[in-house]
């Protein structure tokens, strides 16, 4: 039986939004913006502060470099997975347990491209974008990953 591979067409016209902000965001609002008649799939990743016994988390960025890198990742993902829209919002500043940290919403014609694109963006963000998290405990603090 012949199977067809999904078409990961370049999508230069993808709608994108990239933000690094101290403000909280509403995932549902972004999901609504990502919906379109060209997209049959919207995939969302929402990262939140896990309760690992910490009192709070502090998020810091090199904003100009982080925005430029997110922009590159966004374009790479849109091209590679044929996404119709990409929304990335990363919080900065002091966050409490349960707070939103990062939101990635992508839309595509089909689920495979949308899941692939969302996962690609998250992994690239975690390895390339100059953003750092510090965990503050009652008895101390540590920069994540160092």
């Amino acid at each position, binding site marked *: 039986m012949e199977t067809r591979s999904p078409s990961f067409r370049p999508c230069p016209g993808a709608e994108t939004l990239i933000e690094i902000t101290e403000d909280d965001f509403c995932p549902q609002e972004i999901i609504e913006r990502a919906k379109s008649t060209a997209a049959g799939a919207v995939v969302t990743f929402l990262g939140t502060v896990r309760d690992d016994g910490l009192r709070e988390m502090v998020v810091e*960025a*090199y904003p100009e*470099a982080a925005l430029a890198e997110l922009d590159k990742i966004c374009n790479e993902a849109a091209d590679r997975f044929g996404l119709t829209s990409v929304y990335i919002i990363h919080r900065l500043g002091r966050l409490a347990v349960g707070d939103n940290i990062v939101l990635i919403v992508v839309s595509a014609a089909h689920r495979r491209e949308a899941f692939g694109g969302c996962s690609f963006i998250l992994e690239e963000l*975690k390895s390339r974008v*100059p*953003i*750092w*998290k*510090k965990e503050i405990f009652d008895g101390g603090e540590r920069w994540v*990953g160092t």
Partner: protein
Amino acid sequence: MKIKVRAFASFREMLGSELELDLPDESSVQELLDALASLNPRFCSEAFDRSGLLKDYVLLMKNRKRLDRDSMNQALEDGDEVAVFPPVSGG
């Protein structure tokens, strides 16, 4: 020439978020780091190993582009912005 240094995360806590160093013309990235190390003993011990080599976890950018270890002898220019930071951990 004046070089702007921006430090982030643990290195910001040692060096401050932004400082400007006045270096001789055509100083290299390595010479900039040596100047930072002589200004700040804590940065020196955290960023360099005992033989004076920059530790692997110290990451650098020049004018917002990543610098690899082969570029340490690259000459800087007046007004360059060099960033120093540990591995990223966003997301």
